[in-house]
């Protein structure tokens, strides 16, 4: 079977469009050659158009009442065998006579092909090489022909399109995210009352992030399933916690890794994050600095975001986005109170983690963040 597109034929008398009065067939219908399929009204007359093919109606491209330009797609047929009409059109009907050359130069090209654009072969080859869509280029040559210079302009800074080359960092991000998006993952949200956390971190003189990382590491000791990777034939539980910290840089997002957060105090974690972030922004991270994360943290609150649906990083079963800490209306002891709070957005790999497992761990994490005094005992 093959799909063939039938465009609104030139109905004669120089008319440029027709209105669909009514369809005489529906999608899925089997039609015979020359069976009337649609009634089209032009400024001059209503015309019944006979089917140029025998086959099945795969798609009607416009609804009743719609105006369709001559040459625009009208119907897609599914026909047996190869392309083309299965029989010549009846010769006594001026509309159907023109059916088979209706994709000629006067009709707009709706198939994505650029054959209706005037351009020399060498110019077409250049456009292909530079990834320029010829139909988006304004031809300045004789008769509107697209010239070599037009294509080069289109490739550089087009009239309404600037093409920015993909940097290696951007390319790596794109590949990682595309791979990550293929993992079945879900995101869950928790609100954290940050009243105690704010006091605690101010006392230590650190930002919320190192406190959060420390709390996460402590929580993972009791919930090792979250510190894992999908290994196809096995679930890989990591004995050490290596926290990847998503870091925004001029070149794009990079995720340097805290080597051994479990053995470090909060201030130490803060210093490590600062060092890695500086190196990331300076572009001096080694490839080793970005490898081997077992869980990822993204401080989306640093640019004001409250909640989101972060994607997983390669090799990690969990990604946590830390939202902005802001005063919110929380219900405390049955009363609404304005308190500093934030939302944790937690995405997990549903292949190896279930919502309940993650939920229990998050309950512990939130409880720790709301009572961070328990983190004071961490090694300094």
């Amino acid at each position, binding site marked *: 079977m093959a799909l063939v597109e039938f465009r609104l034929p030139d109905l004669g008398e120089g008319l440029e469009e027709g209105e669909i009065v009514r369809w005489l067939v529906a999608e899925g219908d089997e039609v015979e050659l020359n069976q009337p399929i649609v009634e089209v009204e032009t400024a001059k007359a209503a015309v019944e158009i006979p089917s140029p093919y025998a086959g099945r109606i795969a798609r009607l491209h416009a609804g009743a009442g719609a105006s369709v330009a001559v040459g625009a797609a009208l119907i897609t047929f599914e026909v047996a065998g190869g392309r083309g009409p299965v029989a010549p059109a009846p010769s006594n009907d001026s509309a159907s006579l023109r059916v088979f050359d209706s994709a000629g130069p006067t009709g707009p090209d709706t198939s994505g092909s650029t054959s209706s654009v005037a351009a*020399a*072969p*060498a110019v*077409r*080859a250049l456009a292909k090489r530079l990834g320029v869509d010829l139909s988006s280029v304004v031809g300045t*040559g*004789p008769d509107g*022909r697209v010239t*070599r210079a037009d294509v080069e302009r289109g490739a550089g800074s087009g009239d309404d399109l600037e093409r920015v080359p993909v940097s290696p960092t951007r390319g790596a991000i794109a590949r990682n995210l595309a791979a990550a998006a293929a993992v079945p993952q879900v995101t869950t949200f928790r609100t954290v009352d940050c009243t105690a956390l704010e006091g605690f971190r101010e006392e230590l003189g650190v930002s919320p992030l190192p406190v959060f990382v420390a709390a996460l590491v402590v929580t993972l000791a009791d919930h090792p399933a979250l510190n894992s990777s999908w290994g196809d034939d096995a679930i890989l539980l990591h004995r050490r916690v290596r926290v990847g910290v998503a870091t925004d840089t001029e070149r794009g997002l990079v995720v340097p890794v805290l080597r051994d957060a479990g053995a470090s105090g909060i201030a130490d974690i803060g210093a490590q994050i600062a060092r890695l972030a500086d190196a990331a922004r300076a572009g001096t991270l080694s490839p080793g600095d970005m490898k081997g994360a077992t869980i990822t943290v993204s401080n989306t609150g640093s640019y004001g975001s409250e909640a989101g649906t972060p994607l997983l990083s390669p090799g990690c079963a969990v990604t946590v986005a830390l939202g902005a800490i802001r005063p919110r209306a929380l219900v405390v002891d049955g009363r609404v109170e304005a308190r500093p709070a934030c939302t944790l957005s937690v995405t997990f790999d549903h292949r190896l983690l279930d919502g309940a497992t993650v939920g229990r761990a998050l309950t512990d994490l939130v409880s720790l963040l709301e009572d961070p005094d328990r983190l004071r005992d961490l090694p300094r």
Partner: protein
Amino acid sequence: MAESVTMSAALNHALRDAMEADPRVLVFGEDVGRLGGVFRVTVGLQEEFGEARVFDTPIAEAGIAGMCVGLAMAGWKPVAEMQFDGFSYPALDQVISHIAKYRNRTKARVAMPVVIRIPSWGGIKGKEHHGEAPETYYVHTAGLKVVAPSGALDAYRLLRAAIEDPDPVIFLEPKSRYWAKESAELTVEGPGIGRAVVARPGDDCTIVAYGAMVHRALEAAEALAAEGVGARVLDLRSLVPLDEETLAACVRETGRVVVVHEAARTLGMGAEIAARVMELAFDHLEAPVMRVTGYDTPYPPASLEELWLPSVERITEAVRRAVSY
């Protein structure tokens, strides 16, 4: 030592040298013996090699071509002359049905080392039948090689190569160039049958020509140079086999092609060149292949000849259109 020589004299030298080198070479045709040929190409040969090797035939071109078949089968190397292009048509049946097919018919056991020389094309204010462009008939016939020199040295080289060739060669001589002089040392060294040569360099457009039209193309290129347009002139020399490699290189390097020939436009060499160019180098074409040719009419009377033949002006105009496309 380079000497100033006409194409007629160069062809005469080629025949003489070939006959000296190989006793199997025979020269015959209408008025080639006692008269020495209407274009003086065979002058003196009968005196030198005798009536057995250089002889006049009746005015019967089918007989001349048929004799070529028999002589070739018997081991001779016939070099026949058709006195004028228009007179070569009565011989077409022998050429198409036998000379071109004999090797294939005999599963390669019998070759046809035949050369048929045909003074061709216009430009000499000839009468009817004296200004034909017969190349398409021969080019279209599988089994023949077809060559067309543009000047004296090339005429010498190609005729020697044609006589050496084990297959039949149709040798088209541009009548209007017989008396043009060229300072050249006649030698068999150099490009052979199947090779085209760049007669003038240029980067903006390739003018493809052969025979006398090479010189029109060169004049056009000279005029275009004054306008800053670099027209390259490709002298095909060999219509069959066609030098696809050089042709494709020219298209890749200039992106534009104008084909010039005296023959009428429809199914002339220009049609074939245009098709080959698309097959070989489509993506390099900056403009459509343009043709500057004779018109699709019978060859005109002498008074209209120059209006009919591709002129320098028509060629330069086509190149300008290609370059500004």
